[in-house]
């Protein structure tokens, strides 16, 4: 069974440019998470989806970040415009239910460098 697939693995962009990340969760997983991880830190939740509904986006900087999960399957995370401080690894994870008492499966992440 394929795991959580993220693309691209690496992205280098200039500041003020837009960037998008894509995530394909494990088939059948209704919960999808986007995290941002800075170097030497733990993952910080940006947004959590239950099917196609964003149920927790309190940490998403809405002035420049947006996300969608069409048909409750794949998801995209967009930054426009990117800032130097957005350089980080963006991780996608999925789980079978709310995540309570079940494990989450993570993709390999997208490493974003903003120059």
């Amino acid at each position, binding site marked *: 069974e394929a795991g*959580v697939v993220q693309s691209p693995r690496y992205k280098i962009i200039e500041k003020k440019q837009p960037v998008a990340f894509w995530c394909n969760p494990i088939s059948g997983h209704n*919960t999808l*998470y986007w*995290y941002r991880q800075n170097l*030497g*830190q*733990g*993952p*910080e*939740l940006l947004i*959590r989806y239950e099917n196609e509904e964003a149920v*927790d986006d309190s*940490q998403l900087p809405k002035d420049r970040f947006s996300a969608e999960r069409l048909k409750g399957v794949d998801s995209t995370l967009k930054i426009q415009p990117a800032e130097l401080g957005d350089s980080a690894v963006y*991780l996608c*994870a999925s789980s079978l239910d*709310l*995540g*309570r*008492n*079940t*494990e*989450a*499966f*993570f*993709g*390999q*992440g997208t*490493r974003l460098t903003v120059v």
Partner: protein
Amino acid sequence: SQQGEEDPQALSIQEGENATMNCSYKTSINNLQWYRQNSGRGLVHLILIRSNEREKHSGRLRVTLDTSKKSSSLLITASRAADTASYFCATDSNTPLVFGKGTRLSVIA
């Protein structure tokens, strides 16, 4: 915001020794999970302990949970060089999967 806080931040041991990492958190939880992250890779789930459980084992891993102290510990016995990684605890309370900053474990062969 991060609820869990791991201690120590970094740990270096010899192969064959045991490694103990601790996690403290602030609010009541439904469960607590431990994850491992190798350099440049995604996180891998290790073990989940429910709030009504006190101890759990999985292979060379032993996790304890003390809800009165709001703390958990992860013990890795007979460590191997391949155990070198960062270890994170993640709490499930009002928001599921809130991660701490992690403990960086180095196992020296």
